């Protein structure tokens, strides 16, 4: 049961092979047994989950079940969920019980799915290893000495360790795709504006985008159908007609033009990962696709531009965590200014502070033009690079992450090394494009991911391209030993 796809779980529920309560209990039992070592979840609340499962079973009995009714899902702890502790991986929100539902949560609740728990993450989604979480690092189920990636590391580990059939993530610079690659999952970051950000705790507003993390493209399509859609509460949400993201899954790939940016295939990537990516591309050629070399000349500027824009927005977004109205407040302080500095000094971790400082600096009088405006110009150049590239191809491919999962602690002391974990994913956020990571094999027993990048609103095509590959490969069906 625990290795089944979402649609097969739905069939099992429909056929009364299992009830939602039973299925939820099954996962809760696994979480109780395995989570202490994986640390994928920050919060589990069996009572709440089972109540939702019960309601889902009743909905099904009344003949009102949809494709996700009764299916338990892990929710990244960045999504506010009414009545749930919503920490965003931070001590700052260690006591914050959300009084409202994020739009994404509201949509899943309306679909009748069950919240299995809130997953661990880098503090305020700032990190690529899940090591910045106040609630402890997450172990990669493929090798518990290694990181699961980040920031959606808890979601990735939960699904990889079969502690949830699927999960949500958010991706600001690669936070869905990189952990998906490192944990052998399929993850999709949609076009900016497709999934509402309302209730998704902001890291960098112009880059943040929620999306699904699951075992297959097919599962991702199902999840995205529920997650996506216009939301008038998010001014950057796009008012577009609803679509079925799974509609093109089976389309043949003959004639598909795959763009291979030369910047993705030069230095920077480990040979083992590169070999797996090239093998995957060879598989696509067998499926009838053609490859063409394209160029993203400004790619090399994406990491520096990102590390100006994202911290700038974060420094402002995180100002609301001041100890005044909710969240952590220092127990002792002399005056207002002391309350602010102590609450924030004690409530935020080192990486968050580093980014607040960087962001404050680049927005300061006298530096704004040199850093922030310059970074915005680079951002436009990068977006234009993709526009040019998509004149020659339908989809761009390359590695998701330059390496497989690294060891816990290995890069924690070196922020620049850590930031380079995202060299292939960041440009996609800067351009606002959709991107996926798809399992493409193992090196030394550790999974690697193939990244697919599509033009704006080409989620259905990306899912199609991923799905056809998953029909001729079984990388995505592999599970860590000893967990099944």
């Amino acid at each position: 049961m625990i290795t089944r796809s979402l649609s097969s779980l739905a069939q099992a529920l429909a056929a009364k092979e299992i009830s939602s309560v039973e299925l939820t209990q099954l996962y809760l039992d696994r979480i109780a047994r395995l989570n202490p070592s994986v640390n994928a979840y920050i919060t589990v609340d069996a009572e709440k989950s089972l109540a939702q499962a019960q309601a889902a079973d009743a909905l099904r009995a009344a003949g009102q079940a949809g494709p996700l009714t009764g299916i338990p899902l892990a929710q990244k702890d960045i999504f506010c969920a009414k009545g749930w502790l919503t920490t965003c991986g931070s001590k700052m929100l260690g006591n914050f019980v959300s009084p409202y539902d994020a739009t994404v949560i509201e949509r899943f609740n309306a679909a009748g799915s069950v919240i299995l728990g809130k997953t661990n993450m880098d503090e305020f989604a700032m990190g690529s290893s899940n090591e910045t979480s106040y609630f402890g690092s997450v172990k990669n189920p493929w090798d518990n000495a290694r990181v699961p990636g980040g920031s959606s590391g808890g979601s990735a580990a939960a699904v990889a360790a079969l502690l949830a059939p699927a999960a949500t993530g958010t991706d600001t610079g690669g936070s869905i795709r990189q952990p998906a690659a490192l944990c052998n999952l399929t993850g999709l970051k949609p076009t900016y504006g497709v999934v509402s950000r309302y209730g998704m705790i902001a890291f960098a507003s112009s880059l943040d985008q929620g999306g699904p993390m699951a075992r297959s493209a097919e599962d991702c399509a199902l999840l995205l159908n529920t997650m996506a859609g216009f939301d008038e509460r998010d001014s950057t949400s796009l008012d577009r007609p609803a679509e079925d993201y799974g509609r093109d899954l089976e389309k043949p790939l003959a004639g598909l033009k795959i763009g291979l940016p030369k910047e993705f295939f030069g230095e920077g990537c480990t040979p083992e990962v590169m070999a797996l990516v090239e093998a995957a591309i060879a598989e696509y050629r067998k499926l009838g696709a053609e490859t063409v070399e394209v160029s993203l000349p400004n790619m090399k500027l994406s990491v520096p531009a990102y590390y100006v824009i994202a911290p700038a927005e974060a420094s402002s977004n995180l100002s609301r965590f001041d100890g005044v109205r909710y969240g952590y407040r220092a127990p002792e302080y002399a005056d207002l200014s002391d309350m602010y500095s102590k609450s924030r000094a004690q409530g935020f971790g080192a990486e968050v502070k580093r980014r607040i400082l960087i962001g404050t600096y680049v927005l300061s009088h006298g530096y704004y033009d040199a850093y922030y405006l310059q970074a915005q110009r680079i951002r436009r150049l990068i977006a234009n690079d993709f526009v040019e590239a998509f004149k020659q191809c339908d989809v761009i491919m390359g590695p998701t992450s330059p390496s497989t999962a690294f060891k816990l602690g290995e890069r924690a002391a070196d922020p620049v090394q850590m930031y380079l974990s995202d060299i292939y994913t960041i440009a996609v956020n800067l351009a606002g494009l959709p991107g996926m990571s798809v399992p493409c094999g193992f090196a030394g027993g550790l999974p690697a991911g193939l990244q697919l990048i599509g033009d704006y609103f080409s989620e259905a095509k990306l899912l199609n391209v991923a799905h056809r590959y998953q029909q001729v490969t079984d990388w995505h069906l592999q599970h860590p030993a000893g967990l099944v």
Partner: protein
Amino acid sequence: MKQWEVVIGIETHVQLSTQSKIFSGSSTAFGAEPNVQANAVDIALPGVLPVLNKGAVDCAIRFGLAVEAEVAPKSVFARKNYFYPDLPKGYQISQYELPVVVGGKVNITLGQGDTATEKTINLTRAHLEEDAGKSLHEDFHGKTGIDLNRAGTPLLEIVTEPDMRSSAEAVAYAKALHALVRWIGICDGNMQEGSFRCDANVSVRPLGQKEFGTRREIKNLNSFRFMQQAIDYEVQWQIATIEDGGRIEQATVLFDPDTGETRAMRSKEDAHDYRYFPDPDLLPLIIDRDWVERTRSAMPELPAAKKQRFMADYNLSAYDATTLTSSLEIADYYEAAVAVAGNAAAKPCANWVMVDLAARLNKDGKELADSPVSAAQLGGLVARIADNTISNNIAKKVFEALWNGEGRSADEIIEKQGLKQITDTGAIEALIDGVLAANEAMVAEFRAGKEKAFNALVGQAMKATKGKANPQQVNELLRKKLG
């Protein structure tokens, strides 16, 4: 002694009369219990996002049109970052580099009557932003309470060029702006409740010097009287400081109405770096021609145009026309009265509105909107003076009767109380004959050269008709009889 020139620029925060806040659906009504009008967005819970209230943009467009400014086709909301407990997000959403209204002007009148002069105050810009909440320092045993009801209330911040040269000009500008924003219906103008707050940037320089002096900003002036006092004090203080060999440091100051003094709140050294940047949660505000034209067509006639029209259509003096266009309510009231009284009675209508009605309202401490005498009723009254049905003196009685609700119209009261003027010459002659016969002594005094006796005889005649005889006719006929 050196001659000094005063230079003043004014920033005004105008609270816009929208039902809900600028970026959330909470009510903007004043006076509710603390924090009951603060929703998830207003208290800045994690994850919430702002959504622009188009009603606030409508107000900004109206203002732009009213001051002949450019309504920017594209403006951008920016975050102004600073920490304060009544600023829940840690930043205020405002507009910085690209404001919604650019330029514009407000005309002010200085002095009255023949010596009145006009001056144009140029505007730099007007931008949309959200108000902060309030810190409550009382009743919390040494702690501070926060009320976020006001947080997110829409404001239009209107900034002038440094065009004013005296406190009188500054006050005239503030009054003209106050009247204008109420006229176009974007602000209730309630200064006690903080709906209209001014900051004055004041500097002095030797007369003839080109460069501006160093300015100090007087914050939060919420009455015209305080504005005048604060600027006057500040100007004296600056001149005295410089003349004593001191230098003016750029600073923000507060006016204390109790002492009549201004004192520095913070100096330039503690000035914030607000780290403005475009708010990534909001798209640029795009205002197309259509939106502007739709707004224009819904605009009331503006004061200047209405004043010109009143002078042309009703033959009013500039002074009368200015007074009658000092607010939209008074202008509408006046025009409704004239519509009943007829254009020929436009001038007496003006007098009745400006003098009699104004005095009566003042006596009862009432606003025009609460006047017991409607415009139609007043117009009906003036019509009866114009057609000689009643005299001006009787009209005052009828007005008082209308005020007290003794009848639905002037006609009804005139009829009911028998106040119709006697204009029949025969009737008046007969009346005079009776008066002369009954007052022989007075007649004799008059004939002996006592002019006062004549007035006494007129008085007797009027008394005999309870004032209803046409006084002019009584005069003429009496003189003829005694002639």
